[in-house]
């Protein structure tokens, strides 16, 4: 008998069908991966199990008995713990408080048992000892943490539920390799203890590393389940996209003209940076030639994002020389750099991108307003401008007037990207832009980026996924401890070289 079973679960938001037909069986002691394109309904399915979304139809069974999950409050008693894709942390509370928040230890009826809370926190922080990174501790407010550290806290909070059913909705999207490895060890341990685990990720390698079974969900419908040893990534992707396409391989892109590009002098460069230092990075120098995609690689949080944010003017305290098409650029603030034609796209949508609760149209057009100094809105004309940009990315949305928060994570990201494409920028800084984007959307995105590069726009790409970097960047700067320790170009761009440079002590 399955630990958790979903039968024909469905959910619609007005005209949008979030989940058409969810059928799923989780055994005790298995890791069950769920994979599917953006907006295919994975998070909706998880939220239904966790009680934060009420299904329109269908049944949820635990240990063979049908249950009604009346709300997240009820999950504790039912033995369900969930990691939310968009995290459920209170920013100003400490790590310890967040870990215990759903079940604050009680003392004397009304008081928080601080000692017990600290003990719970210490136990869970110890699980990630050595990989959590600097500045992590039980008493640190969550707002002071890096995104990967916040994600670790959400993981700890989920584990602290000690539930028999654990749901992880993209828990590894911000983690570096060491953190993810540690997390997988913990999952294996829980699995041995008989916990049933749902694991969602867009990273195929992770799924094949940890899952016992994988279920593919497409357009709100669970279309197939397979044992991991009976399938392979190509089969999974084929099932996911529902059409037969070769899975994109690791192969470097067309290298024609490669050397010509790399040897172009800094004078012709779209973007040239020299002796650039700031919080989290030192003495960075590089030049992006027209038509070139320059990659930033290495382990997570080695200064790649910081450099991009500093160039964009969003990270004060940096010094050094930046030239944009030969003219000096003072990154005094995003307004100044945007006016000069800088575009910055981050994977951290909720912090850097999306204007929550506002319509999609308003989310696509702010840069257009800024660059053209528009004072008055003319919705019909703006729509004409916004529509091609959104279409180029195959964004799935019901209407311009719908709030952006009604979109899935991946489609929200497309809206953020689209806003930079209305007016042609001089340089695009991509800061891990594909976080939470499905595979086919990624392919669309990188095809588009290559087109933009060919038009002469300078592109700098930081990606936490090595495969993405190897497949798309013409040159890769490997970051380690805030410095560029290696530059890989041409045939050197192999996974082996990348790993070696990334793992070497700085």
């Amino acid at each position, binding site marked *: 008998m399955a630990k958790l079973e979903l039968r024909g679960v469905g959910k619609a938001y007005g005209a949008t069908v979030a989940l058409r037909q969810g059928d799923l069986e989780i055994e005790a002691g298995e890791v069950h991966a769920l994979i599917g394109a953006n907006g295919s309904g994975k998070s909706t399915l998880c939220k239904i199990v966790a009680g934060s979304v009420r299904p329109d139809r269908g049944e949820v069974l635990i240990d063979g008995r049908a249950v009604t999950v009346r709300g997240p409050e009820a999950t504790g008693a039912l033995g369900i713990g969930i990691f939310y894709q968009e995290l459920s942390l*209170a920013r100003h509370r400490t790590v310890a408080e967040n870990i215990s928040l759903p079940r604050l230890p009680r003392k004397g009826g009304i008081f928080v048992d601080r000692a017990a809370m600290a003990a719970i926190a210490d136990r869970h922080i110890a699980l990630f000892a050595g990989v959590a990174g600097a500045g992590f501790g039980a008493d640190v407010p969550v707002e002071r943490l890096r995104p990967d550290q916040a994600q670790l806290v959400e993981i700890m909070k989920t584990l602290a539920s000690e539930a028999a059913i654990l749901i992880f909705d993209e828990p590894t999207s911000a983690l570096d390799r060491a953190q993810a490895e540690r997390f997988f060890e913990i999952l294996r341990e829980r699995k041995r203890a008989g916990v049933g685990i749902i694991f969602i990720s867009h990273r195929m390698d992770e799924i094949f590393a940890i899952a016992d079974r994988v279920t593919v969900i497409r357009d709100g419908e669970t279309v197939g389940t397979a044992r991991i040893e009976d399938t392979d990534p190509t089969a999974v992707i084929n099932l996911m996209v529902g059409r037969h396409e070769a899975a994109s391989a690791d192969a470097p892109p067309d290298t024609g003209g490669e050397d010509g590009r790399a040897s172009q002098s800094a004078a012709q460069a779209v973007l040239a940076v020299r002796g650039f230092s700031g919080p989290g990075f030192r003495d960075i120098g590089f030049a992006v030639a027209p038509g070139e995609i320059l990659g930033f690689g290495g382990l997570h949080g080695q200064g790649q994002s910081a450099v991009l944010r500093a160039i964009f003017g969003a990270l004060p305290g940096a010094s050094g020389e930046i030239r944009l098409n030969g003219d000096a650029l003072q990154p005094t603030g995003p307004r100044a750099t945007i006016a000069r034609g800088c575009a910055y796209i981050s994977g951290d949508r909720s912090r850097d991108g999306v204007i929550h609760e506002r319509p999609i149209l308003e989310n696509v057009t702010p840069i257009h307003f800024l660059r053209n100094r528009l004072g008055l809105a003319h919705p019909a004309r703006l729509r004409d401008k916004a529509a091609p940009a959104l279409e180029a990315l195959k964004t799935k949305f019901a209407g311009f007037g719908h709030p952006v928060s009604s979109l899935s994570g991946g489609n929200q990201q497309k809206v953020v990207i689209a806003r930079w494409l209305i007016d042609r920028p001089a340089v695009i800084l991509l800061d891990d832009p594909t976080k939470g984007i499905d595979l086919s959307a990624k392919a669309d995105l990188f095809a588009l980026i290559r087109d933009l590069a060919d038009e002469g726009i300078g592109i700098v790409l930081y990606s936490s996924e090595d495969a993405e970097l190897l497949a798309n960047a013409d040159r890769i700067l490997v970051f380690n401890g805030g410095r560029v320790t290696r530059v890989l170009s041409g045939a050197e761009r192999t996974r082996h070289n990348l790993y070696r440079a990334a793992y070497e002590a700085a």
Partner: protein
Amino acid sequence: MKGAPTAAAAGPAGLRQFLVRFPFLPALCILIVLLALNGIFEPRSLSFRSLTGIVSTYLALMMLAVAQTYVVYAGDIDLSVGAIVSLVNVAIVALLQQMGGGGLTVLAVLGIGLAVGLACGIVNGLVVAWLRLQAIVATFATSILFTGLALWIMPVAGTPAPAAVWRTYGGRILEIPFVFWAVAALALVLAILARTRLTTQLLAVGDDAVRAYQSGLPVTRIRIRGYALCGVFAALAAFCVTGDTASGDPLVGAKMTLSSVAAVVLGGCALSGGVGTVTGSVLAAVIIGLINSLVYFVGTPSEWQNLVQGLAIIVALMAGVLVTRWARS
């Protein structure tokens, strides 16, 4: 960022972290400055007697600032606190007038006063959290309701409170003024409340109500409890008002509502919720009191007093907000 902290950066960074941990520090600094200014312009204003006077007058506002703090913690607001003060004030004065001013009777009546405050708070909580009306509009509406009740109980101001009440409030116990005992008791109660689960839960709800709900917190119940606590402290504020003015007045609290909001902000709370301390709110209530007395001591002509008070409060608010913003940047 992994950036190695340099020795030079440790200074301001350390101060910032300190400020984030103790958000009431700016208020404390402003308070000390104001005390010094008061002392310079009128040395007698720092005498024990006049400090006792300030505390007697502004203890009610301290209580009310505390009341407001608990709802602001959760990202809500209560514009009916002043009306609750008025209602409790006239209710206890009317009851005492009918039942006489004996010791036990007074205690019983105070108990009823607390119950009235609690009931008002629960009504607010139900309207805001359960019926999901906008807090700012809903509590404005309930404030009219509560004021209406107060006017029904006592249509005109002026009914005197029994001597036992104001003698106790203005008197001394063991040579120490009663109001200082009250402040000590308030400090104790606040210290206890700070350790409750409710405080942590209120702050978590204020941080992000949806996330708190997804975490499994009973958000509606928590917000109602915040309003209930607010009602109780508003009743305590009403007791102080009654002790200080020695009479019933159905409109006495009206002008205190926005002062309580100002105190909460000045004390370091974010109106969006999730950040703040009751200590800061209490200090800020005293600041507002000191500003008023300072304006008087520097000899501002009476027709200018309101204007100068307003300006001084704006300056204090700005200083507090700027420091807080710097600390959080």
